[in-house]
């Protein structure tokens, strides 16, 4: 379980996060949603310790992150998988090498074991024959899927995804969402996903944290996001006509 308590973060004089508290359970897909610029990426990077913050605490299964030594932090991070918003693939390596990289660094697997494992995860993200391409030769959506494969290859205990399906077509997006949910459940991972895609919210939003103006404006699950009267949530969720219709139908059905 990851617990966040009263997290404050600013850049210079601009306050981005103004006191956020929440927790993320294992085996569940936790979604952070909010408008572009609402601080989702900053929040995730604070969780990972890539950004320092002024106030608050973050703990991983009871271990307070800021109190760990550099070496302990690195040991913890070896159990973390992260999908960056811009994929962050190593551009000097092929796709297969990117995926095998965590195995090479942290396991004693032989070359052929690593290749087998890479095969499995690349198939799982629907990239069965891109092994020898360089990241620069892959499309944005392919890069995203490679980044996901790299994040899950070493069976992480914690998985963070910053907009894992932005830039993907709706079909692949759903495949990726379901994949993330499946492995979260299968390996009992603590998964935290940044998203502004309502489709993902409805597919896999087991816990949803809604950020707005640096605060947690709402928290709940996909089952009750339709029912809430919280104006900032409805504003965000029903900004598209499709979802306005969906809500209409939902309300009519339940009358």
């Amino acid at each position, binding site marked *: 379980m990851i617990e966040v308590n009263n997290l404050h973060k600013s850049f210079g004089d601009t306050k981005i996060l103004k006191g956020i508290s929440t927790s993320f359970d294992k085996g569940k897909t936790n979604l952070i949603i909010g408008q572009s610029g609402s601080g989702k990426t900053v929040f995730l990077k604070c969780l*990972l310790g890539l950004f320092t913050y002024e106030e608050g605490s973050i703990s991983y299964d009871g271990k307070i992150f800021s109190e760990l030594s*550099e070496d302990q*932090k690195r040991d*913890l991070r*070896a159990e973390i998988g992260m999908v960056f918003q*811009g994929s962050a693939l*190593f*551009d000097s390596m092929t796709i297969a090498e990117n995926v095998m990289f965590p195995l090479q660094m942290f396991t004693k697997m032989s070359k052929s074991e690593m290749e087998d494992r890479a095969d499995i995860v690349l198939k799982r993200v629907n990239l069965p024959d891109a092994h020898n391409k360089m990241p620069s030769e892959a499309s944005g959506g392919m890069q995203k899927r490679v980044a996901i494969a790299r994040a899950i290859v070493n069976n992480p205990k914690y998985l963070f995804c910053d907009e894992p399906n932005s830039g993907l077509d709706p079909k692949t997006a759903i495949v990726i969402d379901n994949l993330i949910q499946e492995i979260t459940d299968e390996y009992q991972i603590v998964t935290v996903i940044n998203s502004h895609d309502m489709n993902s919210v409805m597919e896999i939003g087991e816990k949803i944290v809604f950020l707005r103006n640096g605060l947690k404006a709402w928290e709940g699950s996909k089952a009750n996001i339709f029912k809430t009267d919280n104006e900032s949530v409805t504003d965000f969720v029903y900004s598209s006509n499709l979802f306005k219709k969906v809500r209409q139908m939902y309300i009519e059905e339940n009358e």
Partner: protein
Amino acid sequence: MKYLHNIGRYFLMIAEMFRKPTKWSVMRSLILKDIDDLIISSLGIIAFISFFVGGVVTIQTALNIDNPLIPKYLVGFATRQSVLLEFAPTFTSIIMAGKVGSFITSSIGTMRVTEQIDALEVMGINSLNYLIFPKAIALMLYPFAIAIGMFLGILGGMAASVFGGYSTLTDYISGIQYEFDTFHVTYAFIKTFVFAFILATVPSFYGYYMKGGALEVGKASTTAFVWTSVVIILLNYIITGMLLG
């Protein structure tokens, strides 16, 4: 104030670079790749510059000696001294600050802006060790490149003096053997080792700690070149004062 801050951060970076080393099997291939990128690929330009600068030094010296009392072997002697003591170690290093330095700053800087360094850190890898240590080790071969430069510089001087008619082959050869002090070679190589470390670490520092996007990568490369050169020139002064002064 900002300079002091940066100097402090530079030394912290060096210390951190040696902590939590990367697995040897991975490190070995990183080192080999950096030897290729930084040393092997620079040999051509080092050879070219050394040969012609050696030639020019010889011609300049010969043209400036019109006093018949000055012995003929002086041309070879002057070429040897300037190539060995300054042109090969210092002058070449300034050029390498441009070539190797901007390569290092821009490749590490690009990794910074595309979050590849964050990706390494999030995996629990000491990114300073992973990125900078192999470059520092690869550049320990830099003195070999400079040795080649010294040889070619003196050879270039010989070609220029013989083919240009400034001195005879025998005079030139006795000149380059005249009053040979082996400590000068030691001094030159001590300098070269220090410069090699600077060439690996100062550009890395500017790439690693850069902020911003692609535009800033370019700016960081320029800043790195300026500071690498300044540090090399200053250290050259200090080392020369200490060892020869």
